[in-house]
């Protein structure tokens, strides 16, 4: 069980200050804000939920209560009272508070803050957040309500499993409508006590806070106090009291039910016997991480003195399922459980089911991004042994969320970013990816299959089975290589797609080329068009010259056979749109040693072609470099000249005729 998510919020509260001046002997309202509540309302609330005379050395202490709206009479507000003494120069009221009263006794002040329940419920604010937010705020000098930023309060210590179990039992005891008194917590700090109260209440719906009165410390001798959940040093009802008509008969006189007394940390003292409590304890969500979040969504007010209301609440609680959570929350719970090693297997299963069902729905891109982040944060794609029994569903659910469509290389790369361990080590994930049925023409599919363990032949066969065009992959390889180096590509692929990473290209190069070689009938034109895949070799096998050469040789052999003529060499080195690479040259030389020099010359020529054009080409080019207007004129003149000549020839011819 986790406490309510601590998200930063800003809320406005009405406030009151209760205490004494240096001249007073008696407590009174010193000042308060003007708003919904009058000073009398505050006095009533502070007095009604007073914890009694507290030991000055134990201060500060906190009490939590609720108030009715004076106009409507409905419980609409929650109250938080901080019981404290005044440090000598305490500026928290805007003017220094007196430490002692007229009789020289130390004054115990109460700073009371009153917040609308709806506001708190809407943002699932915890008591601890409320306390820390208002504790440091100075009360204003006028009577305006006070605003505070309730920030995320850092946790010094995560509640232990034992503490959580104890909190569950205490929550169950609250359902008996008897007050619950926790003994033996005198060494526990105020912050931890508040956190425990939050922990207990987070096991019930948020609506139970609407009429809860709780205290971090109560004077046991003040037997008439009205708190429902409180810490004390001794029980107020002594079972051994033999005085039938004793003052403890105040119990019967005030119709107060006897307290349920539990001892801190001892779950056995809090065993429930009440049917409603047992009913509650049978709920499947108890102790799970998702339960508080689901419960927090239920803000219908519940009066813990009213059995009927409690039963209604329990009915709703039992309806509480993981499905009530958002996808992100589910992922978070799942991640937390896996990370901390807590959470039942059933819970994990529930998470996965919920994710599967939710993942089928449309998710906004923002939600998907959040999911990605959560997946990355919790490294959910790692191979967790705890989910081994439901691994396929697990990954399917995750991938469904993370990939908003078929697996593309881009999405594949994004997935890689989510992984902390290399993808290749996670066979199940790869299987799951395979199930996502990426398009076979997409290199991603090959990568996945390769990761799964397919050999080159397997891949080639698979490609063939899927009727993938022979040059498709090879073209992709070359285009990506060329794009990666910055020059324009020859393919028709979207330039927005990421280019293949060298390590990936390396993996699929061989099958792609072999497939092309086998199924393209060794179409030379295609190879020329693709530059004999030299650019791809250069990129994907960068730095590994022998590998490049080896492959280049293989390609050339497949295209030209074992021997290369000068014409072949010329074609290889100068015939493709791409400049030849060193590896290609090396391959050519290895295949045609006799023509090594020629090859080198051609190589040089090819490589410098763009830099230094040839003479013929130069002249031709220079001739072509004419002013268009002039060329038009010239053409017209030429045409006219031709026409004149033709006409003259005809005239001569005709004259000869006659």
């Amino acid at each position, binding site marked *: 069980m986790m406490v309510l998510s601590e998200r930063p919020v800003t809320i406005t509260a009405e406030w009151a200050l209760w205490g004494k001046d240096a001249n007073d002997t008696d407590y009174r309202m010193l000042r308060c804000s003007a708003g919904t509540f009058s000073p009398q309302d505050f006095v009533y609330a502070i007095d009604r939920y007073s914890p*009694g005379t507290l030991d000055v050395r134990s201060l500060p202490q906190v009490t939590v209560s609720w108030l009715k709206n004076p106009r409507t009479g409905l419980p609409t507000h929650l109250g938080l009272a901080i019981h404290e003494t005044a440090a000598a120069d305490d500026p928290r009221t805007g003017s220094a508070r007196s430490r002692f009263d007229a009789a020289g006794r130390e004054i115990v002040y109460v700073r009371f803050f009153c917040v609308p329940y709806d506001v708190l419920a809407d943002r699932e604010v915890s008591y601890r957040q409320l306390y820390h937010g208002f504790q440091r705020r100075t009360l204003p000098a006028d009577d305006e309500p006070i605003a505070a930023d309730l920030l995320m309060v850092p946790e010094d210590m995560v509640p232990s499993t034992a503490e959580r179990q104890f909190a569950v039992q205490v929550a169950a005891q609250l359902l008996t409508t008897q007050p619950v008194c926790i003994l033996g917590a005198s060494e526990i700090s105020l912050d931890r006590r508040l956190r425990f109260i939050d922990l207990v209440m987070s096991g019930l719906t948020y609506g139970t806070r609407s009429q809860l009165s709780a205290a971090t410390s109560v004077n046991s001798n003040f037997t008439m106090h009205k708190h429902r959940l409180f810490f004390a040093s001794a029980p107020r009802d002594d079972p051994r009291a033999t005085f039938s008509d004793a003052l403890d008969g105040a119990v019967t006189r005030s119709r107060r039910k006897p307290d349920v007394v539990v001892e801190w940390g001892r779950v056995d003292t809090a065993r429930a016997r009440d049917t409603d409590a047992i009913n509650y304890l049978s709920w499947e969500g108890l102790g799970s991480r998702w339960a508080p979040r689901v419960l927090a969504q239920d803000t219908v007010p519940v009066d813990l003195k009213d059995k009927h209301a409690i039963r209604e609440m329990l009915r709703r609680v039992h309806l509480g399922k993981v499905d009530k959570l958002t996808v992100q929350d589910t992922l978070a719970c799942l991640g937390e459980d896996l990370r901390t090693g807590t959470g039942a297997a059933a819970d994990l299963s529930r998470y996965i089911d919920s994710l599967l069902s939710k993942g089928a729905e449309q998710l906004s891109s923002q939600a998907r991004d959040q999911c990605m982040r959560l997946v990355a944060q919790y490294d959910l794609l790692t191979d967790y042994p705890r989910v081994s029994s439901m691994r396929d569903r697990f990954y399917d659910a995750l991938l469904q969320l993370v990939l908003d469509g078929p697996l593309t290389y881009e999405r594949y790369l994004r997935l890689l970013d989510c992984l902390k361990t290399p993808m290749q080590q996670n066979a199940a994930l790869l299987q799951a990816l395979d199930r996502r049925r990426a398009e076979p023409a997409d290199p991603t599919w090959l990568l996945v299959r390769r990761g799964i363990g397919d050999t080159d032949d397997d891949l080639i066969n698979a490609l063939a089975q899927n009727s993938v065009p022979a040059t498709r992959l090879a073209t992709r390889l070359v285009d990506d290589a060329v794009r990666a180096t910055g020059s324009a590509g020859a393919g028709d692929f979207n330039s927005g797609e990421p280019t293949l990473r060298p390590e990936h290209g390396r993996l699929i190069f061989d099958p792609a080329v072999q497939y092309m070689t086998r199924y393209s009938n060794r179409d030379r034109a295609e190879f020329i068009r693709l530059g004999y895949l030299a650019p791809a070799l250069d990129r994907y096998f960068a730095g590994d010259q022998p590998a490049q050469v080896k492959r280049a040789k293989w390609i050339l052999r497949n295209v030209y056979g074992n021997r290369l003529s000068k014409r072949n060499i010329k074609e290889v080195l100068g015939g493709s749109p791409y400049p030849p690479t060193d590896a290609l040259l090396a391959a050519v030389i290895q295949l045609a040693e006799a023509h090594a020099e020629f090859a080198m010359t051609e190589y040089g020529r090819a490589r410098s072609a763009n830099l230094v054009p040839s003479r013929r080409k130069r002249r031709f080019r220079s001739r072509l470099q004419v002013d268009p207007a002039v060329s038009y004129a010239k053409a017209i003149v030429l045409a006219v000249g031709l026409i004149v000549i033709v006409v003259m020839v005809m005239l001569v011819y005709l004259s000869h005729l006659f």
Partner: protein
Amino acid sequence: MPARVARRRRWATADGGQHRRLTPAQPRSEGISMWGAPSSGKSTFGAALGVALEKHPYERWRLRGVDIRSSDALGRLQNALVHTGEFPVGTQEPADYNWELVNPDERAGMRGLLGLTRRDRTERIALHLRDGPGRFQNPDRWLDTPRARELVETMAACAGFIFLYDPVSEHTMGDSYQHTSALLARIDQRLGGEPGGYLPQHLAVCLAKLDDARVYRSALTATVVDHNYAVDDSPFVPDYLAEEFFARMCRASPNPAAQELPPKLNRYFHPDRIRFFVTSAIGFYVNPSTGRFDPGDYRNVIAEPGEKPKIRAAIRPINVMEPVLWLAEHMKGSQS
């Protein structure tokens, strides 16, 4: 003067037939409730009770808590008063203490004549002390609140009251009469018409803070002071002069209404059920080296500006035990 168990019998015989007809009805519980203006010393009185009992040279009474919370509270209060020399913090809400006065029988269980085991004759007197904050008696602001109504309820169900009258705060606030009359009226209304028109409870009126220099000097002027020469020469006011001194102090209040307090009390409580004491929870300072009271240096409170008042030396409660024992014995006596 030390209370004597024998007095109970004297009171019982003094009842006579005449009073028996007008004996008021019996309260339902056995508790003792304290009331008094704020800072009149109610909590200190309760805290000093145990010490007072222990300091008594020959009475063997002891105070103990019946349940854990009461014994915890008792221990804490006594420790603060005796060891640290600090006064209790101002009471904010009523505290109910289930205490018990025990007079152990040392020879219980021993074999007596004829070899018979002696019966345990330990005396136990229940003491349910309710220490309520002073403000609840303020009729202007408090008496109508639910909390105060509860207080009135509980008080009405008690068998005995200790009314602490603080002449020091009366001098500045002058509100004792106002508090007391409103409270008694409420209790009377709650109990609704007892036989004889009296309230059924016993009342011990304790004029507090005899150790305060002003109160002591007033006592000297009124020549009501006697000294406990047997022990440490500490002054005290004998019981038979207490009522007179109380009336005198009421007259000295700046509020003339306070003069009406003694007759009002006498009107609400049967003469046999009201008794006056002049008390001091912390007593006078006695120099430890001499062990004797020094009229030139008797203040037992150190009051420094900006600090809480502290008790200077060991407390020597005066007449703290006596009203409680008187009440306890007479409450039991009237119920039996």
